[in-house]
Each structure stands twice: as C-alpha cells, then as structure tokens.
C-alpha cells in the first residue's frame, strides 16, 4: 500500500465512516469530514518532503486488462503540487462547510460526498494506471451530481444535477473511448508507458488525444460542453468553491498535462484546443459581464479562466497551464467562499438584493477584494504572474518556436489580452455592485462566523504570495518538472516579459473604465436577455440533442409497444382464430366428415402418382 494510495484512501474511508456514523451527532460528522482531507493534506506534505521523487512509478507488475485492482500510482512534481492544492482547498472547504451548513438536515451525507469527491480527485491526480484514472474521473462526476442535487427539494437543483451529470457523461463517452483506444493500441494500462507508446505513433496520438479532449471539454466546461457549469451554481456554495472552481473542473486540464507528450505529438488537436479556448475565454467573459446573479458571474468567470489554462496547453506550455491552474484554484475558491458568506448573510444570491456591505462584512470584503484583484491579474498577486506566464507562452508560440503554428500563438495572445480587459470590467462591476453604493435589501447584516472567514483568510495568503514562487527557476518550475515521467526540456522560468506586462496593464485600465460605467444598479438587468442566458447555447442543446432524443424515445416505445408486441400477441390470437375456423369443419354430420376424408384421400393419391411419375 504505497503512500499515494494511502492519501487517496484516507478521505474515502472518512466518507464511508461519515456516512455510517454521521447520522448520530453533527459534531462527530464535522470532525470526520475535516479529518479526511486534512489526513490527505498531511500525507501530501510528507510526499512533498522527499522532493526528488526517485522512482515515480509504483506499479503492481501486472499489466494487461484483467489485472487485480489497478493500483499503480505516479508521484512526481506535477502530481504532488496539484495534490497539495486539492487537499488544502478541500480541508478549508470542509471547515467552512461546518459553519455554512449549520441549518442543513442532511449534513452527514453532504460531508461524506465531499470527502468521497476529494478521494476521487486525488485518485485522478496520482493515477498511474488508466483504469484508476477512469474510476476517479467518473466517481468525481457522480459526486458533483450528488452535491449539486444536495437540496433536491428545489426544482432547479434537480434539473441542474441531472444536466451536469449528463453533459459531462457526453464528454465521458469520448474520454472512455479514448482510453479504450489507448489501451487497445498500446497494449498497456500504465499511464507513462501508454503515453510514451502513443506519442511515437502520430495516428494513435491524434485519435486518442482528440477523443480524450472531448472528455476534458466536458469536465472542464469548455465550449461546446460548458452549459452545465453555470447551472451547477444551484448547488451549495462550498461545493461550487471546491468542485466547480478549484478541483474537478481543473481535472481536465490536469489530465491533458499528464498526457502532454501525446498531445504534443498531435498538433492538429492542439490547434483545435486553442480555437476552442479562445471562443470560450472571450464568450464566457462577455456573458459574465451581464449576469444578474453573484455566483453565476463567478461561474462564467471560471469558464473563462479555465479557457486560459487550455489555451496555455494549446500553445505548448504545460508549466504555465499548471501554474495558472494552481493560482486560479486559490483565488477562485476564495471568491466562491466569500460569495457563500455573503449569501449566508443576505439570504439570496441575486445582485439586486446585495449592495453596500463594505461596513457590515469587513473580513469578507477584504478577502474578496484580494481575490478579485488576483482574478484581474494585478501585480503582485498570484493571478498576475500566472496569467503573464500564459501570455509569455502565447508570445513564444507566436514567435514560432513551439509545435503549434504561429498564427495560433497570435490568436491566443490577442484574445487573452482582450479577455483581460473584459475580466477587469466584470470584476469591477461585481465589486461595485456588492460592496460600494447604497445598502439594497433589508434586515441586519453581520459578519460571517469565524469558522467561515478563517478559511477565507487562509486562502488569501497563497493568493498573495504564490506568485513569487514562479520567479526563480529553482522553485515552482523545477517543482512541476521534478523528474516528471516525461521530461519536456529544461524548466524555463515563468517570469513575465516586459512587453506582455505592458499589454495587460493597458487592457486592465480599459476594463476598469468599462466596469466603472456599468456599476449602476440599473445595469444589472434581469438575466433574461439572450446574452445573459449563455448566447442561446442551452436552447441549441434543447433543439439539437434533447428534443431529437425524446422523439427517438417516443418512436422506440411506440415501435416496441405496437409493432413487436402486436406481432407476438397477433401470432397468439391468430393461432386461436385458425383453431376456431378448423373447429367449424366439425359440424357433427358424419357424412360430411367422410366426404372430406375421401376427397383428401383422392387428392393424396393423385399427388403421389404425380410425384412418383416425375
């Protein structure tokens, strides 16, 4: 039982125990809930200490598909860093939930599912075996479905849960078929070997990575499978913070990072990724600008930020993507938890009811402002450095020294810069509507309890300091590269370049200007405009997928009910009817019987004579 497996099992066991014993006392449930992810964090820390992980692969020596449980694990810089982030954020979310979920009757099952989710995410992170990866991937999807549908009394919670699961499941078809192709083509289920073998054969690489990309689009809510994330806000805020901001949505990016040599061997797929990322990045940011609900603004912002990571991967820089993934996790979790605190205090998440809370919720105000600044990418916060690294990577690609064509680099660079402006705009709008201006809504507002704002503070620390680790090459870059199973050249420093800084500052200022003008309450809108409802993508889904499916279902049930059923019962009644007709020949007159018999005999004689003659 290797250390990574222990790290995965602690939250899983906590979940199981929580489910069993949770009903008894809330305190016990709370303690177990926090203990799970905390245990994982401790083990992750221990793993981090033996930094130059000598032999990353710990496999069970039994390849081939019919093996005992796929327990092979991978421990390298990439895995440990993400694992640390996941367990850190999960622990904070569990602590936060104790306060947030005080009035929730089904707290024990909620806490258990969050721990189970953490275990699943960690399983994906340390998965050295494709099968373990698939197990973690799907269990994550299930936990997100269960947690979104936590208070299933509400109609939109039920609908959102099903929508989330099905849309991600659509993506998962591609993912599973991709994994099947990978196993089939390379014959092994060990991730490094499979990736190495796949990257050597371009066709397999293209097909496999194209299919896996489908799964990633579903999980990381990229266009066209992004529609489920905004609706997922129907779930409780801590869930949105953990799953729909920091971890699960990032799992897609992580998997691409893990399979990166294969993706590099398929430039076509990378180009497609770049285009999709750009569409999502800009589209989501613009939609976020017109949202009327606090959490939906943040949701669309997450979609846009994820597009940044995908774009970074598309332009050939895995480190930039992972760097942005980590930093985004911190400040976006912070923002969602802060939003949760506000909703907890105000009672509604609609912007109309929120306003002028600066004085009544000081800590939340302070931490949320830090988060928004990081989101926008203001120096010296983590967001600035990670976003800059993406821009630098795009600029390298534009210069043509990456696998992808230069125009892709230019496209990503331009769209990224424009999105910075739009991001700044919606961030400022959000800030102004929430904190500045007169107090909308009524009733006393007081600060969230300590158990809720402590995690906010704890998250604010990495949001402030994490950026600096990227400066010298020996810190974060080497950490991510540290004897990664597939070395990708020398670890370049993720230091921002002057020209990109200039561009982003200019875009930032423009954005602030736009945001300032649209801070007036009248600009909130009621969220019914086409733009607000996600550019009609949902309607498109309804027409292109849901409606035809229901028509098909109708045909099948119709076909099954009438055609096949009718034939079977028809045969039944048909035989009975022939029986009836035969019966009518028996009317009782013996002379009629004899005449039929004799005519039959004559016919038999004639036919036999004819057949014998021929």
């Amino acid at each position: 039982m290797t250390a990574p497996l222990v790290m995965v099992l602690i939250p899983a066991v906590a979940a199981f125990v929580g489910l069993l014993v949770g009903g008894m006392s809330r305190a016990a449930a709370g303690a177990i809930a926090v203990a799970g992810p905390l245990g994982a964090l401790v083990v992750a820390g221990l793993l981090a200490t033996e930094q130059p992980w000598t032999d990353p692969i710990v496999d069970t020596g039994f390849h081939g598909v019919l093996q005992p449980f796929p327990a092979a694990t991978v421990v390298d810089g990439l895995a440990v860093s993400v694992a640390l982030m996941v367990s850190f954020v999960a622990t904070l979310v569990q602590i936060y939930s104790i306060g947030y979920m005080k009035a929730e009757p089904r707290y024990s099952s909620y806490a258990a599912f969050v721990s189970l989710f953490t275990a699943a995410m960690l399983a994906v992170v340390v998965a050295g075996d494709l099968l373990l990866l698939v197990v973690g991937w799907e269990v994550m999807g299930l936990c997100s479905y269960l947690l979104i549908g936590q208070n299933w009394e509400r109609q939109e919670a039920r609908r959102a849960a099903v929508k989330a699961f099905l849309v991600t499941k659509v993506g998962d078809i591609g993912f599973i078929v991709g994994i099947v192709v990978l196993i089939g083509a390379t014959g092994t289920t060990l991730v490094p070997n499979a990736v190495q073998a796949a990257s050597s054969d371009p066709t397999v690489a293209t097909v496999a990575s194209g299919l896996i990309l489908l799964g990633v689009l579903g999980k990381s809510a990229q266009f066209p499978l992004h529609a489920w994330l905004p609706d997922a806000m129907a779930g409780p805020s801590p869930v949105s913070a953990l799953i729909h901001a920091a971890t699960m949505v990032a799992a897609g990016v992580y998997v691409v990072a893990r399979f990166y040599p294969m993706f590099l061997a398929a430039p076509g797929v990378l180009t497609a990724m770049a285009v999709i990322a750009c569409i999502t990045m800009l589209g989501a940011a613009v939609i976020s600008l017109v949202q009327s609900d606090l959490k939906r603004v943040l949701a669309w912002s997450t979609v846009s930020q994820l597009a940044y990571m995908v774009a970074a991967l598309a332009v050939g820089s895995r480190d930039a993507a992972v760097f942005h993934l980590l930093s985004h996790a911190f400040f976006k979790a912070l923002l969602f938890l802060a939003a949760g605190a506000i909703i907890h205090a105000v009672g509604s998440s609609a912007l109309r009811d929120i306003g002028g809370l600066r004085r009544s919720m000081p800590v939340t105000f302070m931490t949320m402002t830090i988060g928004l600044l990081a989101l926008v990418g203001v120096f010296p916060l983590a967001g600035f450095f990670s976003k800059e690294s993406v821009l630098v990577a795009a600029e390298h690609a534009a210069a043509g020294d990456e696998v992808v064509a230069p125009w892709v680099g230019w496209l990503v660079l331009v769209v990224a810069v424009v999105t910075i402006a739009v991001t700044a705009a919606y961030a400022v709008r959000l800030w102004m509507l929430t904190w500045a201006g007169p107090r909308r809504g009524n009733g006393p507002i007081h600060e969230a309890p300590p158990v809720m704002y402590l995690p906010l503070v704890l998250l604010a620390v990495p949001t402030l300091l994490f950026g600096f680790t990227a400066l010298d090459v020996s810190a974060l870059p080497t950490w991510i590269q540290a004897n990664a199973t597939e070395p990708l050249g020398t670890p370049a420093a993720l230091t921002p370049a002057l020209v990109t800084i200039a561009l982003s500052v200019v875009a930032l200022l423009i954005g602030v200007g736009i945001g300032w003008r649209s801070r007036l309450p009248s600009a909130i809108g009621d969220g019914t405009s086409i733009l607000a409802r996600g550019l009609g993508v949902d309607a498109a889904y309804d027409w292109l997928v849901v409606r035809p499916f229901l028509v098909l279902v109708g045909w099948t049930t119709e076909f099954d009910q009438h055609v096949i059923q009718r034939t079977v019962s028809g045969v039944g009644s048909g035989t009975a009817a022939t029986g009836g007709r035969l019966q009518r020949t028996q009317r009782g007159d013996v002379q009629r019987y004899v005449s039929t018999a004799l005519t039959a005999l004559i016919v038999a004689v004639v036919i036999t004579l004819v057949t014998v003659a021929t």
Partner: protein
Amino acid sequence: MTIQSIDLMALAPTLVVALGALVALIAELVTRRGQVAVGVGLVTVAVAVPFAVAASGEQTLCSGVDSACSYVVTPLSVALQVIVLVSTAVVLLMASADIADRRVPGGEFVFLMLCSVSGAVLIPATNDLVTLIVALEVVSLPTFALVALRQGESRAAEAALKAFIFSIASVAVSLYGIALLYGTTGAVSFDQLAAAAQASDPTPLATAGLVMLLAVVAFKIAAIPFHGWAPDTYQGATVPVAAYLSVVSKAAGFSALLLITGTFAAWSEMWAPVVAVLAGVTMLGGNLVALRQRLAVRLLAWSSIAQAGYIVVPLAAVAGSVAWGPDVANAVVGYLVAYAAMNLGAFAVVAVVARRTGIVEWGDYRGLARRSPGLAVALAFFLASLAGLPPGLIGLLVKVRVLVVPVESGVWWLAAVMAVATVIGLAYYLAWAAQLFRQPDVDERPVTAEQATGSWTAVVSVAACLALTVAFSVAPSLALGLVDRF
C-alpha cells in the same frame, strides 16, 4: 395337401384373451355381479402377458407352398402386444366403477372389450394383408358396440353410428387398395410384397393401392383428415371406452402402420411424403382445435389426435440417409409407450372427477387441488408430460427421441412443424394445469358423496398410470428401449 401345422404356443396370447372373454361373459351370467367379469378380465390379461413374452421369435400359420407364415412374432410385435395388454388392464380398472353402479352391463362390456383386445393382440404379429384386415375388423367392431353400451344415453348411439360408418367406409377403401396391390404384385404375404417392392419401382396402380390402404390406418389412429369421428365418439362414449379408443385401438392402428411401412420400406420415397403431410397436418390441426375446447373429454380427444401426429413423425421422416429400420420403429414404440401411460392417466383422472363431481368442462376443474390434492397433482403431472414440459420428463424425452429422426434425415419442415405444434400444445395443457391450482371461486361446486363401491379401483388406475409415468421419467430407457427388452 399338407395339413397346416399350427403352433398354438405362438398364438397363445390371442387365444387366452378370446377365452377370457367367454369366461367373463359366463361368469357375469352366473354370479350376476359385474365386478367378477372385471376380475376375470384382469386375470386374463395377467396370464396373456407372459405368454406373449414367451412367444417371442415363434411363427405359425405357415403355408406349405412357400413357407410364408401369416403369424410371425418379433420383438417389436411382443412390445406392442404388451402395451395393448397393460393398457387394457388399466382401462378395465377404470371401467369397474361404471360397471359397479350398473351404468354399463358388466359382462357384455368385458366380453366385448376382450374380443377387441384379442384382435389388437393379433395385429402386431400378422404377416399378410388378409390377416391384417381381419384383425383390424376384429378390433374395431366390438368397440362400436362398447361405445353404444351406455345405458340411457341417446348420444351414445349417435357416437357409435359415426364411428361405425367412418370405419366401414375406410375399411372398404383399404380393401380396394389391397385388391389393387394384390392385382399388381400377385401377393398378399408381407414377405412376398416386400420382395416385389425391392424388385421394381411402384407402378401407378400399386401407388394408388398403397395410399388407399393407409386409409384404414389413418382412421384407426384418428389422423386428420380421417379424424372426424374421434371427438364426437369420445364425447358420446363413457370415459373408459374413450380411453380405450384413444390408446388401445390407436396402438392397433400404429401396429398396422408399422407393418405396412415395414413391408413397403423399398418404396419409402413414395409413401413417406404422404405420411409426412399426414403427420404435419394432424399435429398442427389437433393442437389448434384443442385450443378452443371447453369439454374435458373433447380436449383430450383433440390432444390425442395431435399426439398421434407426433408418433407418426419418425415414419414420416424416412428419407435420404434414414431408411425404415429398428431405429425408426423403436422411436415410434417409445413414444407410444409413454403416450399410453400419460393419456390413460389423464383419462383416468377425468373419469374419477366426472363420476364424483359431474364436472365435464375442464374450466370447472378450478381449485381441484383444494378438494383432492392427489388427483390434481396426478393430472398436472400427466398434462405436463403430454405437453413435454418438466416435471413431465418422459413426455419431453420421447419428443426429443422422435425429433432426432427428421433432423437426421433432413426433413426440416417436419421438425419445424413439430416445434410449433409442441408450443401450441403447451398453451392448452398449461391452461388446464393452472386451473387445478387456482383459488376455487366462491360458489364451491357441491362435491357429491363418493360412490362407495368401485371407486377405489378407479383411483388405483390413476395410481398405476402415475407410477408408470414416473418410472419412465426416472428411467427413460424402460420406455425408449422397450423393444430391445424382448
């Protein structure tokens, strides 16, 4: 002129039965009690069986000229004789109840039945057409009298009339067939006929003659289209007589069919298709009409018509690589043995229930399991066997044994028809079996007091059939390998 030496030992079974008939008649006259006649009947059968077995391999009534004997005992004939005799014993047990309460004159009944049985015992061992026809008449005529023997029942006369007219018509036609065969081959003895068949292809007259000869066989086994009389006669006659008709007289028919097809084995491409169509139509028609029946006896009549179709299948499938031979004959005898046990059992239960409760419609058997569980389980077992559904194992095994022949000879359509017929058959057997175990509806039919006298013998007949069927299910080679035992 050599005096024909007659080996009485060979003829013993027929003589014993005939003698028994007379003794039974006289016994009833002397003692005025029908039960004694039944006792004599049972003793006669008990004595006849060992004689039949002992006679195996003998032959007699041989003509001095070409030493062609007209009475040859083969293992096949012994098996058929044993089946006929044992079935008669069961029918006598069944009938003793009717005889006891004067519904049927005891002496005459047993006398007529034993006369008919003496003919039935004669047929399997006949070796020429003349003896065959005479024996067939000896079997048939007493049965019409038996059918009409029912006191105070106008429909019995009508039933006897229908059977009688159908019989004399088919016998006349068969005789004409024999005349034609004799005309074309100049021989009546089976050995000479077989030689003539091997010698040349069938001339048109011979073909016509043979097909017409099959008429009387089709009448005896009540195969469609010669089945018209069967349902009406079974309904008109008393249940034991209907049982007798459905088993013993059919066994006689099958013996005749086996002998005829055996003789003309060389011409099998000519008669096999006719028999195949006969079997196919009988199986399908019998089951289809049985679906619609409401009266228990009429349903059993149509069911026994369908079962006759199954029994003929091996003969019908003689084609290509499969020639007429012991393998085909054993399949027919195997099914016949199982059929006799199952069918007699079903008739026995119907007889008991009809006498105790007066129920005639199988629909009214609802909840029989509540009132007399033993009878219900027995009837369910017989119906399952007839349907070929486990726990009625023997019914299934003999169907498998019969189905092997068409599969081996490649007569696919026949195998398909049998498959479909079995499924249709299952429908009505199952419906009846289900009625037995359903909750009895509210107005429980009053169960009349048990007729004290003679009712135990009827139950014994049910028990005998049940024992036989279960024994066959456990050790199927008792039935399937009966011929090899002698």
